[in-house]
């Protein structure tokens, strides 16, 4: 680990000002990600700005929006009764992530900013276009069981690991920083030829909250995560669904996929396939099919295509009340 300076900030403005002094500065929230990255030689900030004293905590339920502070802990949000009750997809996604210990320490802002678990990215000794632009992507043609089937490029096929971000995509959330608002669908960048650019955040920009339209709290929603072991593991495939139902007919649907793309993947074609329809077996199948439109599987991850089809149909059916 390289030597670094440490500072504590007590307000958002303070945090941004302090971080502005060093272009390599990093904010520290729960530290469950940043410290690992530093230990593994994947991040080397010259300045660590501890933002835990910034008043960006708690959850408020307004008329228009539900606002979750960037420093709220995953566990705290997940067990908030109104979240469990009105935003089940959010609570379920949070509880499906990490372990109880990590969730107690990890913040919402830090969760959104976690880096890919691609094992080539996570090993400083390997080439990786995200880490070292131009060094190559060994996942393409290598061990890619874990990797993207959607949204990848020939420079990068990483997968975004956050469960929370998938749920927030299905809830049409907005990321609020100290000086602007970014819809979650515009927050993450696809790799294209610049895989090292991962989010819309500017250096030194602080996330202070995420906001969810309060209307979404009336919708039915749910999350399902498929993984190699029962707990404490990232998704092979996950599906978040939020449905605005009119009787048995879908008025609006938001469907987001995790584990399949470099960002939480909004499955627009699947949403279109169910909008205005009843969730009959044919419609469910069509939605699953639409969800993998354009999928480009690699040697070891073709199974994800079928897994997405099945899981999308399953979650839609459950949330839609079929089961």
């Amino acid at each position: 680990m390289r030597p670094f300076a440490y500072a504590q900030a007590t307000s958002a403005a303070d945090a941004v000002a302090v971080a502005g002094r060093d272009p390599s500065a990093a904010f520290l929230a729960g530290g469950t990600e940043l410290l690992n990255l530093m230990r593994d030689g994947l991040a080397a900030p010259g300045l660590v700005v501890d933002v835990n004293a910034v008043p960006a905590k708690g959850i408020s339920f307004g008329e228009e929006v539900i606002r979750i502070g960037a420093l709220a802990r995953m566990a705290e949000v997940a067990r908030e009764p109104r979240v469990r009750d009105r935003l089940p997809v959010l609570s379920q996604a949070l509880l499906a992530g990490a372990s109880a210990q990590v969730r107690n320490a990890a913040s919402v802002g830090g969760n959104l900013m976690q880096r890919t678990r691609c094992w080539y990215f996570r090993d400083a000794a390997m080439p990786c276009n995200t880490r070292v632009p131009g060094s190559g992507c060994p996942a393409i043609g290598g061990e890619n069981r874990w990797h993207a089937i959607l949204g990848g490029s020939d420079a990068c096929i990483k997968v975004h690991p956050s469960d929370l971000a998938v749920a927030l995509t299905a809830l049409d959330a907005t990321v609020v920083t100290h000086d602007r608002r970014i819809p979650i669908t515009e927050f993450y960048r696809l790799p294209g030829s610049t895989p090292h650019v991962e989010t819309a955040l500017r250096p030194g920009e602080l996330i202070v909250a995420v906001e969810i339209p309060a209307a979404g709290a009336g919708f039915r929603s749910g999350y399902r995560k498929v993984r190699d072991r029962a707990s404490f593991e990232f998704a092979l495939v996950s599906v978040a669904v939020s449905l605005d139902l009119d009787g048995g007919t879908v008025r609006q649907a938001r469907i987001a996929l995790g584990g399949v793309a470099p960002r939480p993947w909004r499955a627009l074609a699947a949403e279109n396939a169910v909008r205005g329809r009843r969730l009959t077996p044919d419609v469910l199948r069509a939605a699953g099919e639409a969800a993998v439109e354009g999928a480009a599987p690699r040697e070891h991850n073709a199974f994800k295509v079928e897994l997405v089809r099945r899981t999308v149909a399953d979650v839609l059916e459950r949330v839609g009340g079929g089961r």
Partner: protein
Amino acid sequence: MTPPPGRVDGPDKVTGAARYAADQRVPGLTHAVLVQSTIARGRITRIDTAAAEAAPGVLAVCTHENMPRFAHRPTSWLPPHAQSTVPLQEPDIWYGGQHVAVVVADTLERAHEAARLVRVDYDAETPTIGLRENLGRAYTPPDGTPGALQLVRGDPEAGLAAADARIEAEYTTAVNHHNPIEPSATLAVWEGENLTLYESTQSITYTREVVAEMLGVPAERVRVVTPFLGGGFGSKGFVWPHTYIVAAVARQLRRPVRLVLTRAQMSTSCGHRPASVQRLRAGATRDGRLTGLTHHIISHSATRDLIHFNPVASTQAVYTCPGLRVSTQVVEVDMGTTMATRPPSGPANEALEMALDELSWELGMDPVALRLANYAASEPGATNPETRFLRECYELGAERFGWPRSRPEPGSMREGETLVGWGMAGSYHRWHGMRAQAAVEIGTDGRAIVRSGTQDIGTGTYTIMTEIAAEALGMRPASVRPRLGDTRYPPGPTSSGSTTAATVGVAVREAGRAAREKVTALAVADPRSPLYGAAAGEVGAADDRLFLTARPRRGETYRQIMERHGAPVHASGSADLGTPAPSGAGSYGAAFAEVRVSAVTGEVRVSRMVSALDVGRVLNAATARSQAIGGMIWGIGMALTEHTLVDRRLGRIVTANLAGYLVPVEADVPDLDVIFVDRPDPHANALGARGMGEVAGTGTAAAIANAVYHATGHRVRHLPITPDLVLAAGEAAATE
């Protein structure tokens, strides 16, 4: 026996008072970090250590260019050396993760940072990686290759031809890593010509032997201390190069040096279980008697250390079959040396037990009945006798599990999206006895200290030796203090092959009995003793007291006798269980599993598991159960989650941490039910106890795999059975 209340080392471990190798406090300590090769085959063309040497706090940077030559060089794989390649002596690279430099600094963080600054240029060659990708290179290794076996009994082809029902299938198993919770650690402290090595090792004796040999010093000058171990599972069974590298660097620096392997380095520095491809054919008569069985297994091996570390044991030992062939091949790959992995014969056993399950369906026969139809009371052809209670395992296990008289059709038990299935399999592990010595000292306070130069890998050796000594002495367990893990004690065995408790126990008992006899002799010869004049044979011992067996109230305590005597009493004991036992020294069992498989996602969860085991006499119910459930959890890992993935082009392990290599977590493990037959095997040793650590780690994975078939109706013949394979098996069946 009165078991001591819980583990004798439990309070120290729970409170943190237990000091493992890396926890020792040594003044002037320095910290070593290894730099490892990022290529899998080739040569170092240039190694630039200038930046590392200039980094703050750095005391030494050693590479093949400046590292002192070691006094010895193994020419082939020869235990207790874990590998023959000696790093830091030449520019050649034989496997990914080979040590290419060691950096020592005043703090661990500085050592890590400096290690990052070492620049290595390579002339890389394309490595050969992967077993299945290189099956064309499989060959039969020369006779004597460790773990390889070419065996023919009767006429297997004729047997297969004559069979009423036959199966033929190929099974594959993944590369596995040991991943003990405590990473390997070495702390070397020189005082003049004398070295004390605090080491995380399964054998202090081997460590001393190898370090002395490599450094060219007499073994008496090397003391190895291992008070506690956080597991090893084979990864610390023999001696890997990092240990003698640290000892050599500490000698050169004249400072104590500590090295703890990182979790990632654990995947390349202390062995792994090789992958396997296994082809089995089995044929039987209509009533289930095997007529022919062939088991061909191919595993990868490091080129320089030719070993077949997926030994076949159960195929030739457990069942009767007139026509049998076992054959072994290897594929050489550019990976580090393979190593025994708890239990080494697991993959071969699981494939056999999956094949027998397939045969049972082919025959339309209950799988327990199939195994009973081929029951062997002892190992066919073995010369030494044994007493098996395997039949009891089938019966007890089936009863506890509620094994059905006839199994519902595969794929027929469904609850919502969940498919339920039941499977069973046989467990077998060939253990081997060893040699051990133990010493008992009874102090003037009447308390005993029992010593043996073995180590407690975490299985409960401290507890078991306390219990055995207490019984032999007639003392309360609280009056016995166990001492282990120091080469100054009488030499004890390695903690591997499920041998420690059974071997050390025999020596401890002998030492305890001898000590008690000596104290008895003191008492009966002492006119001040109430036992004065009694014959030794009339004196009994219990609860810290010696007394006349016929008149138990007449007697006195150890303490009274020893206080009068005024000097400690010493006695020793030894065990020689043959190294290793020739054959027929097995522990047995039957595993039963219930799984729940999602018909939507292919995810498999184990919902119930029973393991019925015959390990001879159970020495301590609590530690034995712990061993058994540990083995069963290993079985769940092998069956469902654990696989090491290696990048074929880079030769680099991509799952080199516990986020990539998935061991089962709490949520993967249901309540585990363990039953012991618990009958002494008079042929095993004086205690009637056999090796028991590893047997429960066999059979469980096959039971789970067989249950997955029963649940889904589709056979997955690869371990681990990940969701993608379950879905693929279903799709393959659908398109047939």
